[in-house]
């Protein structure tokens, strides 16, 4: 299959998936809204009130009409209005996304770097204490519930190193005296560290295991023996033949995981009261703010699709067997 053919096919497939996701999103949240309205139990929730709600949410129109409306709005990036605040959903999303992204990126980067390092070394020194150590720490972190790890870090680490354990900003900073940009930046960073570390440690477990596995696979291949036979030193073999080849499955699997990380960040943000997209998700569930939820959900689904596509394309780029 020719290169450009492949790329086109993959992009088209992703677009189809986007369309399906958008539609499913519509169905899901219309159904949910309908159910939610039906399920509303409150003092003033008379039948009339519920009817009014339905009309507000546009639930009284035929489904087909609602669907077209929805698609049309999406095309104009109109995501509806948040129920409690009545403000456009679009606006509500910006700040949380700006908060989540750096934190998640920091944690993921940490996980990738440490994960690759530990995975490679463990595979290289297979069977030794180093391998077992790396393996079991990775397994341990991978088996820990994220929120629990967060709590443990708060308990045992935060106090010891003086890191903040909630929010994104020290409330008093800049309140009475001017705070420099640098101070603000550092403050932000300090608030990010624990949540990012929590996320990163759990991810690290996963990644280290992936890398170790991929390396062990690769180091069992015939061409590794040939490389040794040619007189290459172990270190050269590990990097040039082992890691170089293992990067293929590693990149793919890591890219695929990226789409799901924000979902995983939900519990972290909850523990640390970190005002990101994850926390927003929980809050909007609490408040039954369906338009906002719908938008967040769509965003998350789209990011999964995007990273899947990215993984495909990366694989394509780096595996010569596919390109010709």
């Amino acid at each position, binding site marked *: 299959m020719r290169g450009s053919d492949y790329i086109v096919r993959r992009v088209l497939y992703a677009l189809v998936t986007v369309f399906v996701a958008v539609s499913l999103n519509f169905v899901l949240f219309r159904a949910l809204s309908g159910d939610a309205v039906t399920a509303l139990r409150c003092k003033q929730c008379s039948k009339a009130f519920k009817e009014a709600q339905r009309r507000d949410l546009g639930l009284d129109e035929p489904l087909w009409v609602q669907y077209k409306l929805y698609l049309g709005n999406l095309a104009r990036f109109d995501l509806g209005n948040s129920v409690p605040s009545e403000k456009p959903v679009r606006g509500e999303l910006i700040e949380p996304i700006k908060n989540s992204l750096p934190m998640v990126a920091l944690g993921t980067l940490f996980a990738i770097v440490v994960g690759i390092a530990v995975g490679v070394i463990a595979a290289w020194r297979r069977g030794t204490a180093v391998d077992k150590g790396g393996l079991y720490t990775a397994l341990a972190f991978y088996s820990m519930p994220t929120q629990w790890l967060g709590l443990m870090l708060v308990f045992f680490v935060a106090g010891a190193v003086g890191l903040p354990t909630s929010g994104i900003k020290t409330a008093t900073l800049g309140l009475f005296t001017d705070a420099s940009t640098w101070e603000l930046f550092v403050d932000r960073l300090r608030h990010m560290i624990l949540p990012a570390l929590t996320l990163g440690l759990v991810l690290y477990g996963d990644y280290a295991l992936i890398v170790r596995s991929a390396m062990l696979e690769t180091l069992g291949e015939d061409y590794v023996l040939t490389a040794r036979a040619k*007189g290459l030193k172990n270190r050269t073999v590990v990097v040039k033949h082992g890691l170089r080849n293992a990067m293929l499955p590693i990149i793919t699997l890591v890219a695929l995981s990226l789409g799901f990380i924000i979902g995983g960040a939900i519990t972290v943000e909850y523990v640390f009261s970190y005002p990101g997209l994850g926390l927003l998700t929980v809050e909007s569930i609490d408040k039954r703010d369906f338009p906002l939820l719908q938008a967040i959900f769509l965003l998350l689904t789209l990011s999964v699709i995007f990273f899947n596509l990215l993984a495909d394309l990366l694989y394509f780029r780096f595996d010569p067997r596919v390109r010709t």
Partner: protein
Amino acid sequence: MIAVEDLHVWFDLPDGKELHAVQGVSFQLQEGSRLGLVGESGCGKTTTILAMMGLLPPTASVSGKVLLDGVDILERGEESVSPHRWNDIAMVFQGAMNAFNPVRTVGEQIAEPMKLHKSASGREADARVRELLELVGIPGDRASRYPHEFSGGMRQRAAIAMALACAPKVLLADEPTTALDVMVQAQILELLVDLTGTLGKELGMSMVLVTHDLPVVAQVCDLAAVMYAGEIVEMSGISAVYHQPMHPYTRMLFAATPDLFGDDEVLSIPGTPPRLDREITGCAFRPRCDSALGVCETVRPARRLGSPGHEARCHLNDPAIAQAGS
């Protein structure tokens, strides 16, 4: 020239025992000669040549000498043998189709040992890569291609070219034609004969060819060593092994080889090779031998010379024992 002296290899087994895979193998190869190492799978032939390059896993222990121009390269284990890899001894592996890393070009991989051992670099290396490829019958411009773009047979040729990259003194070939179809097999063998002939004369390169396939040995080699249960049970020039085998195993091996033009029945050798994780009393082949004597059960046959350059481990060649009867 290369000589192997009393080589033993043991492998640790998970239950604490050891597998004695190679039991006292010795042979000498003069410059330009080609030795065929023949035997059933598991007889230790691959382990022997791997040991010659020190490519054994950590579960292995080795004793004996591998003398390259009189110097024991195994003397200090990995340390003393690794400088000789590819420079002096190179190998074409079994299933050499997989000897290439799929994500790098063939040319890069052929040039790799050259750069490592500093025999050539940069454009000089590229030129040599093309030369080598042409030598094995591959167009030189294929160097920039990836391994999956080659057919099985061509990859095998490329593997041979790669083995010759540093002009080694000894080429070890492990089942170079298995997994190739018959036509391609024939071509590869012809190539090996040509190469080792030419390079044998020019550079004094010798070859050890490991195979289970007798006709291959007949076609390519001038010396043959038959291995069984970790030992060389017979070794001689090619025609002597064929026409005057001294060991029943050799004889039965030939009888078991289908002869395309003959009408002889194809006989198979009943039974299986012995386990090598325990000590063997007497001759290892006795349970499957059709001419066993009483003494074969208790006494291990020693290496005995028949005619010059023809040796075997069999009591039948001992005039004293043979006369004494079964």
